[in-house]
């Protein structure tokens, strides 16, 4: 079976608006399921509000503190207003990644459309908030303070390209990681089936891709968490450029 088949978008319910095809698909279902998963988990976990937390409450608090630590360590207190955004990004990406680990489940974050939309949202917030807060001063981001003027023609294009490539690298990193991982698991699983059904000595050697796949699945769980962390962390780092009074380095 094609390892890419698992990424297929399936229309579950036709829905068109203003000429756009906005059909309810498996992607839409798993995106909403991820949202629901996070909300249900946190509602249940933080429901008791005990002074001495139980296991579930502790998990929700650890998640909160984990994201809070990312925000504080990268942006300081000035970036605290973005905490809900970072928390949402982290929780959503993590839920999508982990939900995708179930066999036959669709991985929302393995699609470039989704990761690009998320990274463009971050990019839009950086530019929009930067312009609102600093006005023209926002463009000092591309001309670091203390730089001699004759260096501007060289540095400004470099800074501009690095600034514009951020959302792309952010989107591609998450999408490529999730897609490659899931494709790899599929490929190894196919090997197991193929070699196993071939019979004889090959069937005995099918244990090798099976063991390899077990290891890859473990690795994928790590990547599912790691990519959510990286996405949240990089979002914080990009936002850090514009949350402080003085833009620039």
């Amino acid at each position: 079976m094609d390892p890419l088949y698992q990424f297929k978008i399936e229309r579950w319910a036709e829905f068109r608006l203003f000429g756009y095809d906005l059909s309810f698909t498996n992607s839409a279902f798993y995106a909403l399921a991820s949202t629901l998963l996070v909300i249900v988990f946190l509602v249940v976990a933080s429901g008791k509000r005990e002074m001495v937390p139980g296991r579930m409450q502790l998990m929700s608090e650890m998640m909160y503190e984990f994201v809070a630590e990312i925000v504080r360590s990268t942006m300081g207190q000035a970036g605290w207003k973005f905490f809900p955004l970072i928390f949402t990004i982290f929780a959503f990406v993590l839920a999508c990644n982990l939900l995708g680990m179930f066999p036959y489940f669709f991985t929302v974050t393995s699609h470039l459309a989704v990761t690009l939309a998320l990274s463009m949202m971050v990019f839009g917030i950086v530019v929009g908030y930067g312009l609102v807060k600093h006005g023209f001063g926002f463009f000092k981001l591309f001309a670091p303070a203390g730089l001699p003027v004759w260096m501007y023609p060289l540095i400004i294009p470099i800074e501009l390209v690095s600034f514009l490539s951020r959302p792309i690298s952010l989107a591609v990193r998450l999408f490529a990681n999730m897609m490659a991982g899931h494709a790899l698991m599929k490929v190894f699983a196919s090997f197991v089936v193929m070699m196993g059904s071939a019979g004889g000595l090959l069937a005995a050697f099918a244990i090798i891709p099976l063991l390899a796949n077990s290891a890859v699945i473990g690795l994928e769980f790590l990547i599912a968490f790691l990519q959510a962390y990286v996405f949240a962390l990089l979002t914080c780092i990009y936002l850090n450029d514009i949350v402080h009074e003085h833009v620039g380095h």
Partner: protein
Amino acid sequence: MLLFLEDLNVTAEQSLAKAEFTGGMPQLDFASYPSQIFWLAIAFGILYVALSRLLIPRIGGVLEERRDRIADDLDVAARMKIDADAALVAYEKSLKDAAARAHVIAAENRNKINMEIATEIEAQDLKLAEIAASAEAEISQAQQKALSNVATLANTAVKEMITKLTGTKLSATDITKAMTSVAGKN
């Protein structure tokens, strides 16, 4: 091996059929982008509202409350420690005071007793001196008496001797006078 390759060929054909069916990499099927982005926005929006309005304040509130409670408890503990330290200092001070007072009382008692002993000794000394003096007086009296007896005896003896030798009777007074003058010459 041949069998395996044949098998692979079959699966490859099947995959190809599947690939045709899905149309290559589904991620690059741009027709699906509006739908994906639309539903992502809805899911992300719901999650953002739920987290920022309800869940983050709730978890953050519990954490805040706990931090406050711990800080309060630490404050109370610090206050109690200060109280305990003060109590210890007061206790040590009262202990020292009591010891000092006990020392003073002991010294006073010792002085009083010493004084009493001294007075008693003095009184006893006086009494003893008195007794000694009266004893001495008695002794000297007895001595006088004994001496006067000796004189009377000597007087009588001299009178008798003179009477025997000469036959003249001398009065005791004369003999005494004569003896005294002899004693005076010696």
